[in-house]
């Protein structure tokens, strides 16, 4: 078409010139300044339970829930300390029976309504209410009452001191929900049709059951001073099959994958040039145990022998090559959140039970009951490939000692029944455990306190030692960290000598992100906080 006026042609030419020049300019250095906007796709391995924080106590529900509603305190400094969040300040009385919290002002829910101390009191009492059946209600088990003496303060009174309460205030047990919203939603609160209303960096947009959840940025978030939220939208999709998750990372359909990276495909994921794979320290570990009240496991020499027989170094080299050695304790170095020096000194003294088949053989002979082990089974559930690997390695080690152990691969429910039932329906059990809190007691009391042997508890070793019980119970009533450390270290020492459990590993939490995703860092307690507040994308 012939142009009658020269201007359009001039415009076109100059535009083309500008565009061509811009294209020829070397690409500007990748901006390290976070940019607003963009969206990501995150993936979880199963359907979330709810977006009601009272029922969020797993690894899939929290991705949405912890970005929508928030707790009074939050974990910070690599998840080893507590920082203010919706509460700006907190003090504990000398006797540990009164917690006084100052509530932040000017915080609004996503619908514009103000967050008040009434909402805080409502939220805490709701979780404590046995009628609700909250999965995190037990965290507030020692709370006697929650009141608001004025419109800036909330007071929590305890029936007895509880060293773990302040951690509970950073968990979903202390998420602040909107009283008005929850009351009007009634039974449907937290379900896909209704969602949740919170103060967090992202708002609930939709949840298509079985398919995905969508969150959108909260432009009026109260904590923008520290950066974020940046993303326009987050889509959380459900994908049970591990191999497909790896494929999705490769094709770029998945931008963010935490925890659910299959451990036997780390190398493959590392080889993708569009994906970053990092590991955060964890409070979690895998181990082998047995019921220490049933023969022959009631014999300490047998238990120590089994510990010496296990090839922990070999397993670590195979599955978790960059993780440090373990010792005979479940309090990993990552959990030394107070009195570090004392714990380090204790660690240096702890036995490692490095594989020594000669020693194992000798101990078994001395015990005189080694032949009872023949034909016993080791039960495992293949939640990750390493669980199976641990079982197989153990069988192999025992074979070298001339003892035959059979493998018993269980289903998910059988595994749950074994680990949380009466603890008497297995010979040898491969298990895992991670503390909920950055506190050493979180990996000692649930696993070795005798009150946790009965159904519902996690003491899979059926370990019962009155001295240890006394130490564990007493430390929980103290607020002096140095005193607590002393008692816990003593308990740790006794347990290590008695070897009721074989500690194998302390793997890190994997985080796989597409290279366009920035600002994604997780800590050991990633499941308690908002994963997405600081995340931004380069394109």
């Amino acid at each position, binding site marked *: 078409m012939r142009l009658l006026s020269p201007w359009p042609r001039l415009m076109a030419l100059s535009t083309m010139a500008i565009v061509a020049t811009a294209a020829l300019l070397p690409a500007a250095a990748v901006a390290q300044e976070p940019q607003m906007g963009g969206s990501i796709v995150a*993936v979880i391995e*199963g*359907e979330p*339970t*709810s977006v*009601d924080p009272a*029922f969020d*106590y*797993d690894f899939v529900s929290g991705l949405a829930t912890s970005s929508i509603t928030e707790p009074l305190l939050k974990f910070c400094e690599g998840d080893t300390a507590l920082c203010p969040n919706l509460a700006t300040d907190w003090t504990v009385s000398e006797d540990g029976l009164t917690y006084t919290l100052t509530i932040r002002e000017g915080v609004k829910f996503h619908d514009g309504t103000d967050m008040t101390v009434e909402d805080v009191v409502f939220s805490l009492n709701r979780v404590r209410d*046995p*009628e609700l*059946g909250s*999965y*995190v*209600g*037990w*965290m507030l*088990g020692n709370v006697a009452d929650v009141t608001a003496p004025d419109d800036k303060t909330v007071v929590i009174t305890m029936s007895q001191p509880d060293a773990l309460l302040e951690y509970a205030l950073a968990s979903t047990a202390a998420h602040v929900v909107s009283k008005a919203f929850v009351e009007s939603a009634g039974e449907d609160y*937290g*379900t*896909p*049709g209704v969602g949740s209303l919170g103060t967090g960096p992202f708002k609930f947009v939709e949840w*298509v*059951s*079985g*398919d*995905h959840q969508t969150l959108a940025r909260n432009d009026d978030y109260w904590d923008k001073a520290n950066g974020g939220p940046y993303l326009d939208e987050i889509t959380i*999709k*459900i*994908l*049970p*099959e591990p*191999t*497909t998750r790896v*494929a*999705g990372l*490769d*094709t770029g*359909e998945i931008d963010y994958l935490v925890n659910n990276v299959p451990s036997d495909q780390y190398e493959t994921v590392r080889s993708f040039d569009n994906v970053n794979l990092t590991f955060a320290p964890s409070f979690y570990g895998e181990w082998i145990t047995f019921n220490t009240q049933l023969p022959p496991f009631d014999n300490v020499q047998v238990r120590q022998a089994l510990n010496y027989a296990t090839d922990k170094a070999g397993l670590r080299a195979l599955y978790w090559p960059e993780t440090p050695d373990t010792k005979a304790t479940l309090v990993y170095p990552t959990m030394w959140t107070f009195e570090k020096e004392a714990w380090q000194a204790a660690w240096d003294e702890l036995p490692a039970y490095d594989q020594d088949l000669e020693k194992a053989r000798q101990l078994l002979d001395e015990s005189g009951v080694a032949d009872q082990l023949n034909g016993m089974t080791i039960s495992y559930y293949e939640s990750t490939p390493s669980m199976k690997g641990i079982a197989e390695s153990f069988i192999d080690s025992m074979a070298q000692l001339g003892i035959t152990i059979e493998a018993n691969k269980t*289903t*998910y*429910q*059988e595994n*749950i*029944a074994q*680990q*949380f*039932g009466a603890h008497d329906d297995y010979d040898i059990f491969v298990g895992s455990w991670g503390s909920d809190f950055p506190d050493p007691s979180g990996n000692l009391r*649930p696993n070795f306190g005798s009150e946790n042997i009965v*159904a*519902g508890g*996690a003491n899979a070793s059926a370990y019962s030692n009155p001295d240890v019980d006394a130490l564990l119970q007493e430390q929980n009533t103290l607020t002096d960290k140095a005193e607590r450390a002393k008692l816990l270290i003593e308990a740790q020492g006794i347990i290590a000598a008695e070897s009721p459990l074989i500690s194998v590993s302390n793997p890190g939490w994997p985080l796989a992100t597409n290279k366009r995703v920035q600002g994604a860092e997780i800590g050991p307690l990633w499941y308690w906080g908002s994963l997405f507040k600081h995340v931004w994308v380069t394109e």
Partner: protein
Amino acid sequence: MAGYAVRRLLAAIPTLLFVSFVTFGLVRLAPGDPVLIVLGGKRISPELLVQLREKFGLVGDPVSQYIAWLGRAVQFDFGESYKLKQEVGDLILARLDTTVELVALSVLLAILIGIPLGVLQARRRESPVDYAGSFLAFVGVSSPVYFTAIIGILVFAVWLGWLPAFGSGEDPVDQLRHLILPAVALALGMIALTSRMTRSAMLEVLASDFIEAARAKGLPERTILVKHALRNALIPVLTVISLQVGFLVVGTVLVESTMGLGGLGSLITDAIQNRDYPVIQASVLLLTVLFILINLLTDLLYAVIDPRIRYT
């Protein structure tokens, strides 16, 4: 025929009652404690255990539990899932369209590819086409569906980038793109079965006297094949397909979990694994209804295909 259909539907009611009763009993006899499973991994107080048992309706004698459940079920209130804290009805409805789309697409592929393939094989018996078709059928039937799905993802999503690796897509066109790989993975086995069935049924019919008579009359081969032979061969083929459809509703589960699709298959299998009684009971009822309807539809289709069949 309408009266026949209505009578069949009425007869379904006692069947449903019986099935629901048996399911109720069997599922509670199976080992595994739904409360422990729901709380697995979480710290529990003994009070919470008792609390949940009551909430789940697991206290009291089984018969009154069943009557209570039945009373609500007839009002289409199937209760709340133990694990997922959503109404069972909502859970099923949310997943129904994914399952329907997936099953419909797979069956369509099976019919559109399987039947013509079978006809072609019967027509050109012992030819390279016949052998190739048989080989494909062999592969289709032997290959586990999740394996086919993963190979499909590897080739079409990772290497070629033509199709998405997982998920369900947004608008209808996008959804169709997302369903291609899973539907093909599912259809492969059905194509195999359908083509074999068609082939052998066709061969049998083609050998009969009336076909020879038609040929002698000088009818074109195409008319003989499609209008006369195929129509007679369709009855056994229809039987096979209808059986497959029933199983496919839950059989999609492996493809669903491999490719991140939220359908009834994974809902039901997860519920069984988690001893999620309300979901199991409602799902079994739904499946029973589905099987009854499919059977009825198949029987009615027989009458359409073969005018000699009459229902009174």
